[in-house]
């Protein structure tokens, strides 16, 4: 492979790495330029995003370690958009102001680089490496507010849980290597097909599932999530709940779809149960939360459960994978949007308690209306993005004759309405203590605007997103 080919394969990643290094050196050399740093990072991310269409031709690069296929491109787009939005949120998040912003944005960009490698990795070594890169950056970002005990505690819990899970993932990967003699996912599939089911294969799958389940906060590997989400700086909470989770889903999809053929190991029943437990537990526990970040943490566990519905059904219906993708895209906009409003409120009130949201509609009408839209969308009510996502997931369950899954999802979406509307009620139907208006910083306005637009457009005219998601062939 020539260097030109290398460049053609990982051009966007290289560009983003350069941006990250640039941010790092500018911070080190000209400490005064700190106001410009986030914008340099965002510019780098935007350039990378703009480069993606030129680098989407399907290919296998670096001796099969990395692939560029529709799945990878799709997830790269999701990852970049969410990191851009998170960078916007970070600019105006009060506790982050002037607190090692250079390092913060450097880590954020490297997180994005890791994510881009992660979604294209088709080789166990590469997967592990990218997974660790993403995780390490995430641990560090979670604990970035080192003077805040909650931030440190969140980082510690996240780190310890993550380190154990990734250690077990590595051990599982080593068993898989022993069984198949190769680290390439497609080679693994061939060998597994030839040798068939064995207890060791199952052990490898379960061990690897621990690592991936941790990334997407799937029950029972979700336990870190509520604490980490609550303690992390709010933009990072958004990052963990969207970008990091999307990366986890990309690997999960690739590992399950490529490396574990169903005829050798039928993982569907197992994932079915996990999916049901994940959505139900997340929704049920969310009902009692009094902190909005924690509420959104449990809600995002439940949302991961919904996405898993598409993953479970991906071999039974051609609608499975695309419906999971659509849901993920919708989730990106509505969830980051919700966190943007949470930041608006916490900047003004210094609180994330739902009781402090009382009467918010009078103090910040636009922010409240936006949050209401995002929550209504998360509930799955038309004509918003969340409804389209749920609609296609329901369609996939019906197509796959998975009626129980449809019913359980239905019950869950009723339960979810409870807690989302508790927040709406606090904002609109409860009287607040103060009437003082709350302002919104410009970058947050942009972020809220973009996410609102996304939430509405997907809801009203989903066609382009459907095409985007339907680019996924079944057996990629």
């Amino acid at each position: 492979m020539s260097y030109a080919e290398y460049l053609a394969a990982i051009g966007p990643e290289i560009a983003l790495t350069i941006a990250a290094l640039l941010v790092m050196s500018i911070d080190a050399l000209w400490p005064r330029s700190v106001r410009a740093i986030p914008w340099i990072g965002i510019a780098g991310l935007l350039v990378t995003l703009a480069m993606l269409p030129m680098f989407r031709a399907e290919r296998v690069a670096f001796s099969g370690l990395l692939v560029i296929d529709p799945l990878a491109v799709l997830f790269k787009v999701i990852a970049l958009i969410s990191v851009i939005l998170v960078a916007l949120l970070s600019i105006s998040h009060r506790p982050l102001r002037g607190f090692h912003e250079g390092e913060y944005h450097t880590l954020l960009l490297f997180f994005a680089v890791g994510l881009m490698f992660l979604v294209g990795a088709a080789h166990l070594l590469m997967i592990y490496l990218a997974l660790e890169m993403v995780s390490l950056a995430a641990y560090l970002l979670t604990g970035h507010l080192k003077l805040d005990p909650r931030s440190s505690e969140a980082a510690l819990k996240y780190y310890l849980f993550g380190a154990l899970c990734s250690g077990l993932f590595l051990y599982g990967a080593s068993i898989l290597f022993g069984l198949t003699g190769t680290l390439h996912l497609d080679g693994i599939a061939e060998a597994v097909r030839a040798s068939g089911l064995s207890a060791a294969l199952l052990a490898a799958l379960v061990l690897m599932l621990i690592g991936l389940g941790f990334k997407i906060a799937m029950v029972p590997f979700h336990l870190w999530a509520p604490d980490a989400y609550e303690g992390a700086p709010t933009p990072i909470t958004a990052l963990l709940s969207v970008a990091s989770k999307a990366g986890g889903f990309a690997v999960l999809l690739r590992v399950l779809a490529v490396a574990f053929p169903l005829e050798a190991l039928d993982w569907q029943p197992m994932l079915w149960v996990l999916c049901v437990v994940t959505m139900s537990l997340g929704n049920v526990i969310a009902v009692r939360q009094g902190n909005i970040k924690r509420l959104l943490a449990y809600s995002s566990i439940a949302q991961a459960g919904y996405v898993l519905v598409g993953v479970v059904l991906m071999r039974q219906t051609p609608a499975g994978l695309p419906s999971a993708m659509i849901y993920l895209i919708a989730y990106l906009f509505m969830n980051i949007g919700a966190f943007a409003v949470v930041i608006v409120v916490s900047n003004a009130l210094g609180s994330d308690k739902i009781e402090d949201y009382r009467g918010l509609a009078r103090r910040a009408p636009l922010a409240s209306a936006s949050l209401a839209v995002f929550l209504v969308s998360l509930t799955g009510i038309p004509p918003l993005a969340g409804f389209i996502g749920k609609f296609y997931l329901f369609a996939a369950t019906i197509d796959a004759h998975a009626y129980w899954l449809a019913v359980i999802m239905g019950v869950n979406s009723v339960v979810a309405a409870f807690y989302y509307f508790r927040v709406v009620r606090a904002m609109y139907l409860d009287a607040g203590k103060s009437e003082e208006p709350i302002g919104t910083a410009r970058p947050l306005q942009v972020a809220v605007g973009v996410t609102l637009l996304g939430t509405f457009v997907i809801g009203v005219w989903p066609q382009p997103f459907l095409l985007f998601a339907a680019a996924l062939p079944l057996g990629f």
Partner: protein
Amino acid sequence: MIPLAPFLVVSAALVAIGVFGALTRRSALGILMSIELIINAAALNLVAFSQHIRTSDAESTAGQMFALFAMAIAAAAAAVGLSIVICIYRNSKTVNVDKIDLMRW
């Protein structure tokens, strides 16, 4: 030459001991050390497989390479973990994880 199976037994034992440590140590540092044991077990597995399992010529070094990378990554992860532990210590003057529960339910 020692066959494959004894190595697998050793690495499985190391994993079990490591998980046990992670579950029972009160100190975050103790948990970190236990996790190092697990990563070592995986690396040992990889090297053992690399020598004993039939692979294609192109992948004759795959297992060893994975083990080497895993070590580098583990070192980086340990550095990150220890810096987080230092932060925790500065904030709450303890590294015992059962004392660290500001956030729950």
